[in-house]
């Protein structure tokens, strides 16, 4: 019998970049952040990461087993979910927190909806939101591992935990109820007016209705010389990863750009509430510490890694821009006026909820027609 050739539908060329390649690139892009976490927080942070990743992969395999669908753990998507979940957990968290978080992320947020490609919400963030609701104290614990950095922020912080009396003393000295807390963003949400008196080194305070943040503080935060979650403290490391993803064209610039730009713009424009001793007052318009809003907290990991999650973001470019702007708006609103110092997680989840509608509004105009296509639903 003659040789049998293979018949496949066209096209006969396909990109080498399959799901696995994309996910591996994301893992690689996250590597600097985790290496920095290892340097900054020590081994337990990596142990937390490992727990999250392993649990995610095992949960994925179990779910696929239960659903009688082929195993696809080799596509690294569960690994990425585990890594992202660990990235938004505090470094000293108990072992069961990443464990439960990964199970919720993969088992409920992903496989209940049909697995990769069908989840409505970013699994890692859904896991994080679940943990926030289930273990609020563990997630927001104020005790951090001993820092290696030498910044002033560090010393203040150590003082808070080490000697409460000293803090009270210092506060008396400057004549204000200075409250500094773990992360720079938490400080931002609890700023007070020091009434023109001596500043406390490293603290963020209000003077003449304007929040005072020094460049060195911002630089510290940008470098990661601060407090925060495992993967999000170093904006620099995340930026490197983000640039790598952009360079490899894994993600497009639309979401990160729209997200960060909106946060910067609104962070600058909107007045923030603060305590002037007796009541809540508001800072002046157009004076916000926008740079701190950009480099602080989880904005970079959110903008480059979470919001750009393909499954849970819009498909068209216009939709991506809208999505990014929405995330930015919600992030700032939650950060400045909301009950949480950090708005990235919830803002992305909220915008994930809106994605089906954004996709519906931003359908491209079909070539040769005046309108976008509109299938019946």
């Amino acid at each position, binding site marked *: 019998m003659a040789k049998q050739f293979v018949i496949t539908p066209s096209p006969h060329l396909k990109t080498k970049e399959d799901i696995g390649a994309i996910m591996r690139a994301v893992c690689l892009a996250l590597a600097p952040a985790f290496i920095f976490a290892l340097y900054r927080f020590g081994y337990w942070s990596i142990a937390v990461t490992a727990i999250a990743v392993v649990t995610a992969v095992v949960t994925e395999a179990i779910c696929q087993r239960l659903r009688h669908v082929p195993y696809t753990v080799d596509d690294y998507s569960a690994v990425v979910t585990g890594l992202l979940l660990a990235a938004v957990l505090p470094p000293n968290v108990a072992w069961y927190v990443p464990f439960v978080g990964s199970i919720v992320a993969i088992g409920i947020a992903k496989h209940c909806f049909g697995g990769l490609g069908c989840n409505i919400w970013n699994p890692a963030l859904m896991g994080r939101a679940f943990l926030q609701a289930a273990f609020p104290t563990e997630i927001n614990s104020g005790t951090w591992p001993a820092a290696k950095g030498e910044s002033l922020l560090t010393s203040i912080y150590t003082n808070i935990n080490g000697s409460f009396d000293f803090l009270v003393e210092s506060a008396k000295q400057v004549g204000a109820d200075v409250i500094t807390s773990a992360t720079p963003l938490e400080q931002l949400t609890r700023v007070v007016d020091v009434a023109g008196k001596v500043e406390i080194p490293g603290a963020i305070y209000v003077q003449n209705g304007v929040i005072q943040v020094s460049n060195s503080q911002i630089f510290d935060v940008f470098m990661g010389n601060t407090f925060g979650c495992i993967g999000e403290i170093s904006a620099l490391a995340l930026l490197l990863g983000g640039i790598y993803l952009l360079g490899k064209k894994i993600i497009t610039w639309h979401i990160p750009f729209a997200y960060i730009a909106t946060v910067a713009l609104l962070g600058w424009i909107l007045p923030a509430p603060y305590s002037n001793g007796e009541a809540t007052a508001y800072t002046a318009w157009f004076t916000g510490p926008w740079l701190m809003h950009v480099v602080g907290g989880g904005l970079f990991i959110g903008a480059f890694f979470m919001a750009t999650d393909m499954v849970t973001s819009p498909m068209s470019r216009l939709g991506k821009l809208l999505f990014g702007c929405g995330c930015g708006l919600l992030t700032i609103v939650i950060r400045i006026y909301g009950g949480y110092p950090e708005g990235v997680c919830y803002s992305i989840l909220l915008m994930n909820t809106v994605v089906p*509608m954004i996709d519906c509004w931003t359908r491209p105009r079909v070539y040769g027609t005046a309108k976008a296509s509109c299938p019946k*639903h």
Partner: protein
Amino acid sequence: MEQAVIYLKIIFAAVFVQNFVLSKFLGLCPFIGVSKKRSSAIGMGLAVIFVMTLASAATMLIYQYLLKPFKMEFYLDIVSFIVVIAALVQFVELAMRKLAPALYKALGIYLPLITTNCAVLGVTQLNLEFAKLNGITLTDCLLRSIVNGVFAGVGFTLALVLMAGIRERLESSPVPECMQGVPIAFIAAACMALAFFGFAGIA
């Protein structure tokens, strides 16, 4: 200015922070039942806005002119509110069917579904908070109730339409068999509620 801020706060709270479905978990029956298609979700949402507004106004009047003068506000509010809302909606439905068939087609069919819904009753109960505020005039109280009613409905509609978008997408997803239909809708609602946690604490 002050007034505007107060109303803005009421609106923001009604739509997002205290969203009836996602924060107070009221009105889940129509939320799950009529969120399969976007078109019916919008119709249902409009009906809810309509009923909530009407109920807010009517019950506040009942409260101010009947319950309070006769000191029955502590035990007869729920009973009388239900009766009034149900009858009012029935009547409006009857009238609408005859007088505005087009409008009836758009939202009339949803009206009987929500006449005695807990979300509607809930909004009237919440409105009583305004009535108990010190130094508030009758018109102010009525106005705030109506604004609250309208925007509680808007919040409900928002949740409903978003849910419909999500469920339309889930339609084509290989959701595990045991999860298809209402179970996954409830899980999705729970996830939405988790996301709406983000609004918590915004005053």
